[in-house]
C-alpha cells in the first residue's frame, strides 16, 4: 500500500507553531530514532538479551500524541513500546537498564523490552499480548472518571490489534461510559508479516470504532503536527467528558517486526516509497524550508541526543544484574488486611 498523504508538511500548518516547540518535536523524534538505532546495534552485537520490537519510522505517532498530553496523563503500550516510553518521559537510561536486564532498570530487570514502563511517569509496564492493553487502558480511564480526576489515557496499539476481541469489548465499554481515553491505532500496514489488507475488507480501520458510536479519524501518522493536532483535539474532548476518541495513525515501520527480520514480505517499492515519508526527514525539511532553523542547529540537537544516549549505554552496560535474592520478590503486594 503506497503512502496516501502528500509528502510535504503544509507550510501553513508549520507556520502556526513556535520555533522552540518545533525543535522540541524534532528532538523528541530524533531521540527515539537514535535510541532505536543504538539498541539495534547492541542487539546485533549480541550485547542484549531477549528480543526487540522497534519503531523506526513511527516516531511521529508517539511524539505527536504525547506532546498533546499533560505530564500527569497516562499512556499504555504494547510489544513495541520504546518510542512511547521515551515520548512519555522515561529516560533512555532507565529503559536501557531494563533492556540490559539490570536491577536498576525501570522494572528492575523483571520486565524486559516488551514490558517497559514507569507508573510514576504515567506509563504502566507495556503489555505484549496484542490487544491486551486496550481493556486495561479503558479501565484506567474508568478510574479517572470515577475519581473525578482531569487526566486522560492514551492507549497505543497496532492495526493488528483491532482484530482482537479485546479491542472491541473495551472500545464499546469506553464508548457507552464516555471514558477519557484516546485510542491511538498505529496503522503501520502490517501486523507482523501480515498486510492489513489481509485482515479487513474495508480500506480503513476507522469503522471498527465508529461501530460503537465514537468519533474516529484517519490521520497522516508520519506528520507529527497532524498527529499532534488531532491528539490535542481528542484530548480536549476526553477531558470534557466527551470521550473516547479513536485515531487511526497511518504510518510505516522502517525496520523489521522484531530482531533480525529481513522484511521479505514487504514489496521493495513500498519500502522505498515509505522511506521517503520518514517523519524525521519530513519535519526536518519543513523546518529548514520555513527558514528559521539552520542545519547546524539541527545537528547540534542531534549531537546532544547522541551523546546522552551513548552515555546512557555506557552506564547501562555496566549496571548490576539482579541477584538471586530478587528472584521471588515483587510477586505480591504486601497485604493491607486489617487496615
Amino acid at each position: 500500500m503506497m503512502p496516501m498523504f502528500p509528502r510535504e508538511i503544509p507550510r501553513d500548518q508549520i507556520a502556526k507553531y513556535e520555533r522552540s516547540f518545533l525543535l522540541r518535536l524534532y528532538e523528541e523524534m530524533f531521540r527515539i530514532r537514535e535510541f532505536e538505532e543504538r539498541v539495534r546495534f547492541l542487539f546485533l552485537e549480541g550485547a542484549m538479551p531477549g528480543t526487540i520490537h522497534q519503531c523506526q519510522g513511527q516516531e511521529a505517532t508517539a511524539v505527536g500524541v504525547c506532546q498533546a498530553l499533560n505530564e500527569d496523563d497516562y499512556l499504555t503500550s504494547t510489544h513495541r513500546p520504546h518510542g512511547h516510553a521515551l515520548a512519555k518521559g522515561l529516560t533512555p537510561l532507565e529503559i536501557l537498564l531494563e533492556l540490559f536486564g539490570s536491577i536498576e532498570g525501570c522494572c528492575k530487570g523483571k520486565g524486559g523490552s516488551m514490558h517497559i514502563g514507569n507508573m510514576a511517569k504515567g506509563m504502566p509496564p507495556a503489555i505484549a499480548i496484542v490487544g491486551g492493553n486496550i481493556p486495561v487502558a479503558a479501565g484506567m480511564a474508568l478510574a479517572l472518571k470515577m475519581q473525578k480526576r482531569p487526566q486522560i489515557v492514551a492507549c497505543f496499539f497496532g492495526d493488528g490489534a483491532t482484530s482482537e476481541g479485546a479491542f472491541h469489548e473495551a472500545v464499546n465499554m469506553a464508548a457507552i461510559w464516555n471514558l477519557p481515553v484516546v485510542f491511538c491505532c498505529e496503522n503501520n500496514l502490517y501486523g507482523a508479516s501480515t498486510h492489513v489488507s489481509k485482515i479487513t475488507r474495508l480500506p480503513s480501520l476507522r469503522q471498527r470504532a465508529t461501530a460503537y458510536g465514537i468519533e474516529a479519524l484517519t490521520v497522516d501518522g508520519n506528520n507529527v503536527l497532524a498527529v499532534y493536532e488531532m491528539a490535542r483535539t481528542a484530548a480536549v474532548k476526553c477531558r470534557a467528558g466527551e470521550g473516547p476518541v479513536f485515531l487511526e495513525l497511518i504510518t510505516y515501520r522502517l525496520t523489521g517486526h522484531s530482531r533480525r527480520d529481513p522484511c521479505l514480505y514487504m514489496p521493495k517499492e513500498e519500502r522505498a516509497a515509505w522511506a521517503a515519508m520518514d517523519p524525521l526527514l519530513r519535519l526536518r525539511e519543513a523546518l529548514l524550508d520555513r527558514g528559521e532553523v539552520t542545519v547546524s542547529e539541527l545537528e547540534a540537537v542531534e549531537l546532544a541526543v547522541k551523546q546522552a544516549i551513548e552515555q546512557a549505554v555506557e552506564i547501562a552496560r555496566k549496571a548490576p544484574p539482579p541477584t538471586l535474592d530478587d528472584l521471588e520478590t515483587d510477586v505480591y503486594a504486601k497485604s493491607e488486611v486489617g487496615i
Partner: protein
Amino acid sequence: MKRMGIAEALREAIAEEMRRDHRVFCMGEDIGIPGGWGGAFTVTLGLEKEFPDRMINTPIAENGFFGMGMGAAMLGMRPIVDVQYGDFLLCAMDQICSNASMMRYMSGGTVSVPLVMRAPVGATGRGAQHARNLERMFLGVPGIKIVAPSTAYDAKGLLKAAVRDGNPVMIFEHKLLYGSKGPRTESGAVDATSDIPDDDYVVPIGRAAVRREGADVTIIAWLLMAHAAQAAANVLSAEGIEAEVVDARSLNPLDYETIGASVKKTGRALIVEEGPITGGVGAEIAAGIQERFGDCLRTSVRRVASPDIPVPFAPVLENAYRPDAARVAAAVRAMCGR
C-alpha cells in the same frame, strides 16, 4: 449477630466495604439493574440503591471488563468484578492470567492490582458449560490468591480480606451454598448459613479451618465438598472412625501448617474435590503433603473427585459426577482398612 446465607453475607460484605472505602466498586453483568436479580445469584441485589454510581452494569464482555477492573485497580480503585458462572472465567483468562496476575512482578514491584474476582461454581443441573469448578486453572498462576468459602461466616470474612488485600484475589462461591432466595433458589441447595457478628471482621487469606477433630484420618475439602466431608465424618464416627475435617478455604496460599498438624496427628490424608480428578487442586495438595509430611503418612494420600469427563446434564449422571458423603466415607474406610 444475625443468621445469614452466603449470598446475603457476601452482599453485606460488599456493602460494608463500599461504605468503608469509597474506592470499592462492583462491575459485572446484570448488577445494579432496578427490578433485576443482583447478578446471577442475588449477591448484589439492591446495592444500586445505596451506591448508584458504584454498581457498574457491563455488556457481556468478560475479558473486557476484567481487564478494565485491572486498569482501574492500577489507578487506585478497588474493583470487585464477577462472572455469572465460573465457566465464563475462560473468556477472561488473558486479562486474569497474563495481565492482572503478572503486572506486579513485571513492574518490578511498583504497580499493584487490588482486584477482587468472584466466580460461582459447581454442577447444578445446567449442563457442561455452567457447571465447572475451575479452581484448578488458577492454582498454577503465581500472583493470584484464591479463596473458596464453605460457610457464610467465611464468605463474608474472606471477601472483606480480599477487598483489602492489595493483590488479585479470586473468590470461588458455590451455587448450592449461596442460599439465594426467591426466583434464584437452587434445587439441591445445602445449608451454609452462619451466625454473622455485628462487628467488622476478616477471615485472613491463607488459613484453613479445622471443622471437626479426629485422630484417624484427615479429610481436606472446600466449598460444597467441605459439607460432604463433614457429613461423611458423622457417618464414620458412628462406625468408630474419627475423621478430622480441614476446610482448606484458601487454595492459594495453601495452609500447610494446619494441614500438616492434622496429617501428623492422623497419618492419613484424603482430599475431596468437585471436578475431574486429573489435574485438580487435589493433585497439588496430595503432592504437597507427601513432599512435606511423607514420613508421617501411614498410607498414600488419596483423592475423591469427579471422573475425567465434562459435567453431564441428566441428574442421575450429575449426581454420580459430584462426589458425595457416601463416596467420601467409602474412601476413608478403604484407607483405614475397613
